[in-house]
């Protein structure tokens, strides 16, 4: 199947999913027993009849449910996700402001998670049942069992407060100026502006949160890599490669790992979603001003439009991440191309 056909199929599959996500978000917003006016307007506006009426009209609240949904979808397509009760700004503007920080964090974290997870998984599978293997398995177990907020606190207390190896909360030191806004990723923006000092500071601040989140996903990655590599190393083509007299390193890397990584890639889309969820807790502790912390603050101040906006956004990111994973599949797994 040629690439464009494959792409087209994936896009067509994604459309009903995205529409469905809006339906679910709409239904949840409607199914909750709380009055939508109470849930979506700040306390101060509730006594103002004009404001309440305007809100009712804008979201079509006096119309039947399916008309309400269409109104909602129409507003959504124009980028209108409602107004945050807490910040009093359109939710979309808030998201635009906070999203880059989370993308910077999640991307670094997934790279850290992959590096740690895959190398641990390989070590564990190659030296199976050795003390090293047990060590890795215990490590992986800690990764999936420790609450991510505990990891963040331990990291903050040991690596930052005790040892001083990493920077503390926030994206930059107090006195460091923000780099000029281009992408919103401080590391990238400071590089683009040629500000080395700012870059160093931003990177230094990125270490702890991305390490915490990276550890959190590396446990899962290490487990999958281990079991999948073990299975591959038992297969006939690996035996053939060995019989040909190829060096063990080459056998493991070229024949073993490149096949064993397919399930890991499959998982990446799901993991990225996990990571964004884990980011809520990490960002809350490490004062990382991303959408995770935004969602956290929204949820504790009953800011329903904001939190619904974030969950829909992350659901969309999840769909996109899985779409990218499907694309990567096309390149790593030749079976799809010839199917």
């Amino acid at each position: 199947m040629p690439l464009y056909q494959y792409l087209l199929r994936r896009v067509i599959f994604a459309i009903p999913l995205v529409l469905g996500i809006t339906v679910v978000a709409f239904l949840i917003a409607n199914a909750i027993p709380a009055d939508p006016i109470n849930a979506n307007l700040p306390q101060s506006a509730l006594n103002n009849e004009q404001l309440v009426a305007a809100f009712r009209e804008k979201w079509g609240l006096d119309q039947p449910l399916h008309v309400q949904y269409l109104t909602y979808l129409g507003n959504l397509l124009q980028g209108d996700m409602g107004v945050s009760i807490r910040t009093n700004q359109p939710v979309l503007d808030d998201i635009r402001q906070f999203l880059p920080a989370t993308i910077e964090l999640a991307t670094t974290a997934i790279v850290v998670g992959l590096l740690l997870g895959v190398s641990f998984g390989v070590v564990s599978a190659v030296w199976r049942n050795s003390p090293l293997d047990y060590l890795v398995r215990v490590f992986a177990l800690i990764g999936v069992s420790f609450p991510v907020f505990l990891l963040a606190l331990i990291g903050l207390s040991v690596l930052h407060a005790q040892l001083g190896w990493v920077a503390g909360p926030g994206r930059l030191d107090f006195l460091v100026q923000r780099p000029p806004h281009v992408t919103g990723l401080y590391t990238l923006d400071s590089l683009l502006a040629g500000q080395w000092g700012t870059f160093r500071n931003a990177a230094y601040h990125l270490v702890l949160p991305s390490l915490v989140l990276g550890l959190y996903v590396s446990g899962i990655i290490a487990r999958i890599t281990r079991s999948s590599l073990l299975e591959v190393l038992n297969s006939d083509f690996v035996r053939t490669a060995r019989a040909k007299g190829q060096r063990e390193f080459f056998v493991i890397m070229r024949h073993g790992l490149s096949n064993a990584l397919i399930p890991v890639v499959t998982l990446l889309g799901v993991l990225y979603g996990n990571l964004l969820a884990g980011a809520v807790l990490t960002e809350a502790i490490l004062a990382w001003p991303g959408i995770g912390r935004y969602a956290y603050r929204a949820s504790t101040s009953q800011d329903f439009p904001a939190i619904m906006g974030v969950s829909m956004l992350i659901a969309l990111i999840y769909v996109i991440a899985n779409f990218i994973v499907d694309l990567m599949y096309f390149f790593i797994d030749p079976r799809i191309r010839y199917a």
Partner: protein
Amino acid sequence: MITPVAKPVTVPASNLRRRLRQLRRQPAMIIGLVVIVAWFALALLAPVLAPYPPLEQNIQNRLQPPNDTYRLGTDELGRDVLSRVLYGGRITIPAGLAVVVINSIVGWLVGAVAGFAGRAWDEVMMRVTELFMAFPTIILAMAVTAALGPEIRNAVLALVIVRWTNYARLTRGLVIEAKTAEYVTATRSLGARNPYLLFKTLLPNTIAPVVVYGSLDIGNAILLFAGLSFLGLGPEPSSPEWGRMISIGIHFFDQWWMWLFPGLAIASLVMAFNFIGDGLRDMLDPRTRT
């Protein structure tokens, strides 16, 4: 003349004994079981074991590091951390269990109806399940609790809304496989109607894997519940819940005992459930056996 040679007869060990022998080869599973039983006992006996009432304040002795009087130290109001950690199990463990039990019931119903009815029903119900899976678990749960108000019951409800999907998919597969079995055809030919087939014939034959899956999921449920409660979306602030204690402990960062001990309580319990889960998977799926 050929004399028949009696073949040596091997008596198969009873299923239970074989399982027990397998268990002996899984030390991690035994550790997990011991830890879980210990936590259940500690939570049950908390009123007897705790040296102080979990809500008793003693301002003069606030923020004490672990010492002989307060084994795990005291918090910002002089409450005994040990007593609070012990009582914490009485909130988190039942909450985790409740999430899993309700999820098993809801998931079983949705999955069984989808698998049994087939065709359009199946298609629609499974697409809806997939949609729920696209939402980020904890953020959707945050949205639900934010709308309903922070309360233990609402946190449990939120986790049901976001996590029934895996149960439904599992059950659907099981029911589709089982409904073509001869015993189902036989029951149907005896004149059984659909509700009877579903609840009297298929339920007992498909519930076991769902229960196993649920028991593996308790660890996740506990982590998520603690996460919600850490964010302030679970029990009320003064309650001795582990996630809640940690979130208060953050403000007293240098008093590490305030957040470390409840954290270790969560971690040890979840780890124990994961030990069991890994062990069960190894026992049931010989391919992953190492």
